[in-house]
């Protein structure tokens, strides 16, 4: 342990603001990147499922709907 007490650890021998700003910005960015990647994936899966449900409805509800496999259903 390079520090005698927790307060000394926070003070970083007077360089506390510099050390902690650098580390905090890094941690915040890395954390934000992970959160973004997770929500991106969830969102994509949700969209795919929503589209699958709609297609099942279209296919099951009416008489055979001509829709090409692999093509776009008109949505955005």
């Amino acid at each position: 342990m390079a520090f005698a007490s927790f307060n000394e650890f926070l003070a970083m021998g007077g360089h506390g603001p510099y050390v902690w700003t650098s580390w905090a910005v890094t941690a915040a960015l890395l954390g934000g990147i992970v959160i973004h990647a997770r929500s991106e994936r969830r969102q994509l899966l949700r969209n795919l499922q929503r589209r699958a449900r709609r297609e099942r409805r279209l296919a099951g509800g009416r008489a055979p709907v001509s829709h090409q496999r692999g093509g776009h259903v008109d949505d955005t």
Partner: protein
Amino acid sequence: MWTFIHKLGSPRWFYAISARLQPWFWAAAALLLLVGSVWGLAFAPADYQQGNSFRIIYVHVPAAFLAQSIFVAMAVAGLIFMVWKIKVADMAAAMMAPLGAAMTFIALFSGAVWGMPTWGTWWMWDARLTSMLILLFLYFGVIALRGAFSSRDSASRAASVLAMVGVINIPIIKYSVDWWYTLHQPATFTVTSRPSMPMEMWLPLLIMLLGFYSFFIALTLMRTRSEILRRESTKRWVRDLAAEEA
């Protein structure tokens, strides 16, 4: 060998294989970053000249390494995409760019903060700092180019070309401290020669470095899988898979 590469190049294969690799890299990243942070912040001895401000090195150097490595990886992926038309390479390259920009920003920001107590200034137009700033703008350029085309293929090719041309900046960054007189100290971290700092300072730096690289690999795997879902959303296997993962 070739069949292996082409299988890996198929989005479906990549999606399956990366699912198995991904957790290991996340676990490694979490463990290494945790150990490295605690060791670097609390246990490594203070520098005899810089005191405790040197602890910025544990985020600064890994971020700077990764910023450059990601650009090289992006250029290589661009080359693979241009030569062999492997789409997964382009998807991975597209996902690397924002992380590379973030790493460049961390390196520049922590460097500026570190410069204040050490050099008495937060910015100098010297070779190392300027070439890193150019790297940041190159990342912005690659990201902007992807958004500037209505055709995905044109966007991918333009971004690949810029990455391959821009990679010339990497050796300039690396050797800037030797070629020009700069404030920035020469490389403090090498794996090839004996470390110039004591073991108790160098080991946590190595651990942080490996942690950052694991993070990069894990995130790129994860986001490339997302990109596959986005770009291949009309493919049958993607639809089936989305139904399964509901």
